């Protein structure tokens, strides 16, 4: 099998690292060769953050390069747009319909682009989820990234049972139930 290339992008502090680790563990448990790449240090401080997950029979490089991503998971709209050119022609976008202004916008040096979702849809099949609203409904805004992951789950080659198992064994014990509900919410949104 040719390797599957997943990108998770967002804003530093949104939990891209944790999400990629869940995905990495899932692919490992499914018996694939897996490589993940993360960014630590200064770039994490509210900046644009990207992590890569690759799985398949044998994976060489740990990064996903431009034009190589099968799935682009974005925790914020503008970040989806920023990394759009990393997608393959037949790639899929799963985006959290949520806006976080970069400092350049807050200070008025730049403006936040309008119509991002439309631009994404014109370019690639796009699933936009209001993950923050869903997570708030569950009483835990922080679980929004698992909602997004739930929506993305249908575009990866794992069974729902495998997903549930990895969530149960990865997140802190106290948060298992809420995370499973967050996953289910996302999973049912993307039908």
């Amino acid at each position, binding site marked *: 099998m040719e390797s599957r290339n997943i990108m998770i992008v967002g804003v530093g502090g949104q939990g891209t690292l944790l999400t990629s680790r869940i995905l990495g563990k899932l692919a490992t448990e499914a018996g694939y060769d*897996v*490589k993940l790449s993360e960014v630590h240090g*200064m770039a994490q401080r509210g900046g644009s953050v990207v992590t890569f997950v690759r799985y398949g029979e044998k994976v060489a490089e740990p990064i996903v390069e431009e034009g190589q991503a099968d799935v682009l998971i974005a925790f914020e709209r503008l970040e989806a747009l920023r990394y759009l050119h990393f997608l393959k022609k037949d790639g899929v976008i799963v985006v959290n319909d949520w806006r976080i202004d*970069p400092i350049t916008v807050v200070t008025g040096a730049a403006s936040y*682009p309008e119509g991002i979702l439309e631009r994404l849809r014109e370019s690639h099949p796009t699933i936009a989820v209001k993950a923050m609203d869903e997570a708030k409904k569950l009483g835990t805004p922080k679980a929004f990234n698992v909602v997004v992951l739930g929506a993305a789950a249908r575009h990866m080659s794992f069974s729902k049972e495998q997903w549930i198992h990895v969530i149960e064994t990865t997140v802190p014990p106290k948060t298992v139930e809420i995370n499973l509900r967050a996953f289910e919410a996302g999973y049912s949104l993307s039908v």
Partner: protein
Amino acid sequence: MSETKILLGNEAIARGAYEAGVKVSSAYPGTPSTEVSEALAKYEEVYAEWAPNEKVATEVALGASISGVRSMCAMKHVGLNVAADPLYTAAYTGVRGGMVLVVADDPGMYSSQNEQDTRMVARAAMVPVIEPSDSSEAKEFMKYAYTLSEQYDTPVILRTTTRLSHSQGLVSLEDRCVPEDRPYERDAAKYVMMPGNAIRRHVVVEERLKKLAEDACGLFLNRAEYRDLSVGFITCGIAYQYVREAMPEASVLKLGLVNPLPRKLIEEFAAKVDRLYIFEELEPVIEEQVKAWGISKAVGKEIFTIQGEYSANLLRERVLGEKLEFAPEKDVPPRPPILCPGCPHRSVFTALKKLKIRAAGDIGCYTLGAVAPLGVIDTTICMGASISTLHGMEKAKGKDYVKDWVAVIGDSTFMHTGVNSLMNMAYNQATGTVIILDNSTTGMTGHQDHAATGKTLKGEIVPAISIPALCRAMGISHVREVSAFDQEELEKVIREETQADALSVIIAEAPCALLKGMVFPNKCRPDTEKCKKCGACLKPGCPALTRREDGTIAIDETMCNGCTLCMQLCKFDAIKLVKAGE
């Protein structure tokens, strides 16, 4: 035991050290090396500590080695500069128990002030360098580094890069195997490096490297993979993976020992392939040696870059001649890193900006005080340099010149090398002002403890070194402690101390907002009725604040930590502190 686990490159290195029976580890945190020490500290059998700086860490590791056990120290590339003094001479003394320095380079400078190549330093210091290409090799090579260290009686550098350190891959775990402690025997000719002894040891160092270079042709670390002979690559580290990705049919000479180089093996490989590329990130270290041996067909930096990270696409473009056109979307505003909501540095910089004071900066999150909207830091060089550069300015231009200057340095950076610079100011009768941004942690690398936090890497609670007492012990009488969030007090103290004809230290205290266990009972909330839309609260660039379409202010309460900076800047009493959740 044959468990397979997915591990970060740095965790795999730590696992290798653990399995090799390492007993002592010392390090100073630095991205991308930090997790090596953190992961190693989790093994009960290993003593692991944070040292104030890399020179100390390296000497601790050397001492442990001289006493007869296996030891490790870890640092980022620029940390090796700090450790250069013991390193160059440790090459002369050699080791008793195996000793490995883990050094992490940062091609692309994700979190560094320069892009230096550790292999250059290692060549100058005449120390062998091993370089793995993924997590699995990171563990294997780390273990083997100890065998090599003891066999050739030399410290060994395990070189990694950001991409390797911070990517994860599958690693099969094995048991820990501790070699017997080597008994201590006095050997002054080997361990007392005074000229008479060092002259003889220098000969040993040269012979050792020559011998290792010959043996390197047969080491498993170096591997020739012959496939299509029309094109061959000599490569090492993560770059190997890009070759395998882009050109899986190409022949590859994969070097795991990158200093010294296996000349015969390289000549043999070069003779067998038609076209030969040297594919190495950063400096042309392999390339220059290969070309010096007369292998003129080798192509390297003529088509590949010295700067930044490599990729498979780089090979597709430069070697395969593919035209890759990936146009990034237009009108995407950049999203640079920023200080967090509730960060005490923002508050101090806001006061400096208001007072129109410039700052000589240092290494840490607070380097972000150099960029808009704060823009108060004018210099950033290396760890500890803020204090000494400020001193240089004063001695060059006189004491009045530095009345609108300060040095800003974090608590961890101050303990690292800033303390030496402050001693210099005290000794040489400086009158400048040093602000220690004391957020009780090493922030940027992910919250490591240090000598002034009162906790060790192993989690032990210990007496904290008092920074104010340390400053006073230098004979500095102007030592002021202020809350980093009190604008009025900050302004008053900074004004007084910069004007005073005496050396002053201002310790601006407030814990890092991301520190574990921090609770924020309050949130700032705007009162839209009272808001005059002046935007004063927006000026420090707190990410929790935005302007609504009608011009009034909105505060995202999920981000706000209730630091009150915006509240203090509001002249119209339009921001209130409320209990979280109300």
